[in-house]
């Protein structure tokens, strides 16, 4: 089943055409890695898919509902209630975590479920504790983000996103803000999620990781998808010169 379908997405900032015509599809349980040089529009793509950026035109569909779609050249977003529902389908993990510094780890995770989704607090705490245990940081529930390492903060932010039970989780360079020795713990968590069939779209510069964890690789450059396919195809045996040039930078 298709969870996310993007069609002819375009976005420019002034005369900088960041997304030129992006179409892609993500099936349930699929792990998609998005790779490409800096400035190719990877973050903008995720930001459009998560309502942080408004595309100029194109359609974004989650399951069978349009988040936004262009009808007769006019961009239309889903109406309020529907929008709320569609937005609950996805979660986003940021490069620099964006945890709430004034809340404990526990509150960071349960605040949205309790205050926004009106879930029962006890139940939300239990879910949060399970997630923290899974992330290996159950002992940090009462700590404040400032007292955690970058890797621990990123695991909290993954738990925070998962607590809302999204159907699909986006990651924008989840390890780029971390010291190299801490990236492993995050990649491990993502691998674990992949093993549990979590649907994920991951923007990453970790080629080895992308090849290991992803079912599908998308190589973006200059606002278009230059090449996509299985890791074997795109990373193992790239067809486009641009893909080859990009990948050669990661060898040796």
């Amino acid at each position, binding site marked *: 089943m298709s969870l996310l379908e993007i069609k002819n997405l375009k976005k420019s900032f002034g005369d900088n055409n960041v997304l030129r015509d992006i179409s892609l599809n993500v099936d349930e349980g699929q792990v998609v890695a998005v790779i490409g040089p800096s400035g190719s529009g990877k973050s903008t793509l995720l930001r459009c898919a998560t309502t*942080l950026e408004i595309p100029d035109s194109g359609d974004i569909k989650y399951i069978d509902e349009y988040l936004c779609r262009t009808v007769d050249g006019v961009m239309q977003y889903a109406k309020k209630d529907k929008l709320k529902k569609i937005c609950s389908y996805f979660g986003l993990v940021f490069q620099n975590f964006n945890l709430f*510094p004034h809340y404990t780890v526990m509150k960071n995770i349960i605040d949205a479920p309790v*205050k*926004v989704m009106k879930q029962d607090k006890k139940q939300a705490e239990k879910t949060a504790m399970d997630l923290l245990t899974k992330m290996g940081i159950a002992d940090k529930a009462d700590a404040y983000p400032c007292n955690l390492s970058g890797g621990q903060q990123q695991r909290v932010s993954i738990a925070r996103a998962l607590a809302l039970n999204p159907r699909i989780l986006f990651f924008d360079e989840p390890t780029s803000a971390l010291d190299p020795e801490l990236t492993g713990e995050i990649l491990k968590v993502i691998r674990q999620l992949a093993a549990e069939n979590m649907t994920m779209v991951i923007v990453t510069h970790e080629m080895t990781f992308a090849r290991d964890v992803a079912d599908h690789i998308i190589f973006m450059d200059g606002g278009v998808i230059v090449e996509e396919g299985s890791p074997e195809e795109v990373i193992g045996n790239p067809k486009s010169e641009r893909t080859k040039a990009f990948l050669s930078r990661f060898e040796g």
Partner: protein
Amino acid sequence: MLPMPIIAAISPKVVFTQLLGGFELTIRLFFLTLLFALPLGMLVAFCRMSKFTPLRWITKLYISIMRGTPLMLQLMVVFYGPSYLFKGADIERFPAAVIAFSINYAAYFAEIYRGGIESIPKGQYEAAKVLGYNKIQTFMRIILPQVLRNVLPAITNEVITLVKDTSLASVIAYTEMFSVAKRLSAKYLSLLPYAGSGLFYYVANYIVSIVMEFFEKKLNYYEK
């Protein structure tokens, strides 16, 4: 022979009692100003950051006038202005003082709040949005608590200044402590009432700094 002017002998006890009476009015002015100016400042900060350009410009002008002209003059305008413009539109001294202080301090608080709000990283809003918080929830639950913590030291400075600035209300003959000190000093030809009032201001601000320090500690439970 001209009779010598009779100067009453000064009694510290009388001075203290009278100053204390004035101090009560000082305190009243102080608390009412904070009560109005602290929230009003937030409203002004929002107007100052509004996307609606005319509102933004008017607010900017208001703030620059409040900060660019003497508070003493503003007090006189608020007190004498209405009756000067419209016959019979008199205003009592006390409300005039409260209004003048409130709109003046709101301008200063607004700039402090604005600085605090603008210092919150964009990522906080984005994280909140993706987690489903609406605009009001985002502001009340995520942004405001961080802003308050960040601006509290600057607010403390203003509050301490306010304690001393209340003496300016003597310009419209509101009988707060400084007016009382002036009157006693003239009556007894003594500097003792001034010294006494200085002590009162000092003690008041000592208490203010202890209270604000308590709040600062309370809000400093996390690091940025």
